[in-house]
């Protein structure tokens, strides 16, 4: 089976890699690039843990092949904080509102909420719950995640 060489921009950095076409984008990010913040849960598009931004829009990275990202821009959870100890306002809100327990689902949830809040800066609780419907969390019961999202939304400067 023929390998393909792709050029891909991840968190602002463009790299070339030669890969098998069957390599999932999620596995490419984790194994080739070492960006293990993208979590892999169900690997068939149900749990949302592997959500990343593809050209700014949230997608399941387990339902795409890395070769399809050739020439495109990916953002993973590692791209959120500007530096160590300097959390993104969305991450800060999750910390303060106890929006995570084990943290496995958190990267996917952050990257689902980032474009959602950019488009809906003043969401209702119901809208936040609907936006989160594609991300499973088995610890929190979602209440603190919703609180964190609303807290982040209340700090309008977030995202800038």
């Amino acid at each position, binding site marked *: 089976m023929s390998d393909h060489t792709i050029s891909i921009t991840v968190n602002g950095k463009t790299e070339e890699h030669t890969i098998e*076409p069957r390599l999932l984008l999620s*596995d490419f990010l984790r194994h080739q690039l070492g960006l293990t913040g993208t979590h892999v849960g169900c690997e068939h598009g149900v749990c*949302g843990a592997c959500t990343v931004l593809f050209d700014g829009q*949230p997608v399941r990275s*387990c339902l*795409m092949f890395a070769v399809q990202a050739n020439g495109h821009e990916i953002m993973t959870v590692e791209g959120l904080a500007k530096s160590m100890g300097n959390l993104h306002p969305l991450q800060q809100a999750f910390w303060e509102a106890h929006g995570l327990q084990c943290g496995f689902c958190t990267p996917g949830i952050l990257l689902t909420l980032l474009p959602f809040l950019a488009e809906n800066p003043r969401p209702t609780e119901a809208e936040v719950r609907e936006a989160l*419907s*594609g991300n499973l969390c088995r610890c929190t019961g979602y209440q603190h995640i919703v609180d964190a999202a609303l807290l982040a939304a209340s700090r309008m400067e977030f995202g800038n």
Partner: protein
Amino acid sequence: MKPAPFEYIAPTSLAEALTAVRQHGSDASLLAGGQSLVPVMNFRLAQPAMLVDLNRIPELDYVRREGNGFIRIGSMTRQRTLERHPLIAQYTPLLHEALPYIAHPQIRNRGTIGGSLAHADPAAELPVILLALNGRVQLQKSGGARWVHGRDFYTDLFTTARAEDEILTEIELPPLPPRTGVAFTEVARRHGDYALSGVAAVVTVDERAVCTAARLVYLNAGDTPISATQAAALLVGEQADEEVLTAVAHATQQEITPTTDIHATADYKRHLAKVLTVRVLQQAFTRAVNE
């Protein structure tokens, strides 16, 4: 790695893609949004020898409205794009209403209208909408094209009239007649899950609010999207009174054939279909009268 090995090509024009499917025939699978194909490849339930990726063909991504009111949608248009498209909101309100029921935003960002229609999942929303709106799909192959009505496109479970050397390229939705109301609803265990039952209604009335034409199409009610034509015919000549709608909802039971699965019994799905039928018909009648 999860999927079995395959060869991959990503043509940048429709002509190139058509040549590829002609050459590779049944060895090739078409990759549209991948939101149904990639999961089954991850489970190795599908092991295509070749993937022809349609995602780099910009000529299949468009929404247009013609002078005669027909809406034309390129098959690789993302569901999320359609959800936000002003032409879809204004001229095909039924499609606009159904799109948010499809899975989650992350899925709709990748999923395409053509991919969902060609996948032919009887629990999916878009095939139901195609039939309810009396739409057609264009199937192209090297050196030819044909149009197939939605009602003739679905032949069996996950099976369509599309031949393996054909690509679904365009969806055509005719304009709705005046005084036509539409409605869609479904019931799912959780928002974004496959629905247990769902129905689309299209109702046209005259000046006296008497029905002159109606369509009722069901998801998860058989091996294909199910158009309850005999039940819908009972509406013609009638107004939206409760007795009539209840009688129609009962009549649909002769035409739908839901089956028991881990999510719900066939009886429960039948019950839902009845309740939802009355609900969408009330809404569609009201909208038709207010049109």
